[in-house]
């Protein structure tokens, strides 16, 4: 995951500028990856406050550890790995808090199926179903089917083996199929 666009510098060039002391150049990397990484965090954590906390934390940690980015042209993939870990940490903390909002979201999604238009209801139901997945399976599903990473890239980011990741993706798909069938056909 790296970007070479015609309107700006490559990831590697921006990283080098930062390492040369141009701290402001880091804003270019933030701007470049905020939306994609923000989407992952939002899908993984399920609410904007946690997602933005994870995102900010990942970018700040990325800056402070920039010397350890061994392939600056693939800064995005490296930063993605940091974000994945931040989401794991925040997700675990959230689970320990036993938030009641999860139940509220469930009620909302089911209400939506009945009360809103079909497309809106399906969208809400899908988000609810993804939130029900075990975090490891949700993580693998998002990286594979939303971020469209290869299993090799996923291994690099998560540290899990290819076979373990394939198993998680398969289980996520089966669970989504089961959950969505139950809710949509209620």
């Amino acid at each position, binding site marked *: 995951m790296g970007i070479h666009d015609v309107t700006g510098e490559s990831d590697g060039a921006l990283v*080098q500028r*930062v*390492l*040369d*002391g141009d*701290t*402001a150049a*880091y*804003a270019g990397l*933030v*701007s470049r990856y*905020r*939306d994609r990484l*923000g*989407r992952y965090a*939002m*899908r993984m954590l399920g609410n*904007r406050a946690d*997602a*933005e906390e994870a*995102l*900010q934390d*990942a*970018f*700040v*940690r990325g*800056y*402070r*550890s*920039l*010397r*350890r980015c*061994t*392939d600056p042209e693939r800064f995005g993939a*490296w930063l993605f*790995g*940091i974000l994945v*870990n*931040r989401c794991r*940490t925040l997700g675990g903390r959230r689970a320990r808090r036993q938030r009641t909002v999860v139940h509220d979201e469930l009620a909302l999604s089911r209400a939506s199926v009945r009360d809103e238009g079909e497309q809106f209801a*399906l*969208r809400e139901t*899908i*988000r609810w*179903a*993804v939130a029900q997945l075990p975090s490891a399976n949700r993580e693998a599903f*998002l990286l594979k*089917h*939303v971020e469209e990473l290869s299993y090799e890239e996923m291994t*690099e*980011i998560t*540290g899990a083996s290819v076979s373990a990741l394939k198993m998680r993706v398969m289980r996520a*798909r089966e669970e*989504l*199929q089961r959950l*969505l069938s139950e809710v949509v056909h209620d």
Partner: protein
Amino acid sequence: MTERDMLLERVAEVLKEPVAIDPDLDRRIMNEVRAGPTVRAPIGPVAWLIRRRVVSVSPLGGLALAAGIAAVALLGRSVWQATAPSAAPPSATVAATAEPTPSLVQFVILAPTAGTVSLVGDFNDWDRSATPMRPARGDGIWSVTVPLEPGRYRYAFLVDGQTWVADPSAPSTFDDDFGPPNSVVTVGGS
């Protein structure tokens, strides 16, 4: 396409939709970045060697480099070692002196198909060009010996400039967020 495939495709489409992120987030990130220390490029190997004190290398250091664990055992010093069970097993061997002076630490990895191998770690600011490893013998073993002052160091091997290899038989660290776990070596007294 089956009904199940269509459903999962729809799931992916929905999840790919953009999300609204606070437009002020960039400013908050940069404020926090600027509030901390400035990140600088790692220093080069020459500066690194100069910064560290002159190291007294034991005459047995060369023997340790060549013969690994056996040579270290001859030194009669405290030894930390790791063996490598995989096809490309890395290992590190430490002979630490009781003095608060740099100790020779030998890092070894078996990588028969590698074109280049470098050692990266806390001790060289994770600079992949600072500590290249050399083929110690003609059988795929790469080795380098570096002086390390007493302390705890995280390290890994970088094979062909892109494959990050932690030492599977050495203690690993999971106390950061920067990708696969690294290995840990502790250099201490005798």
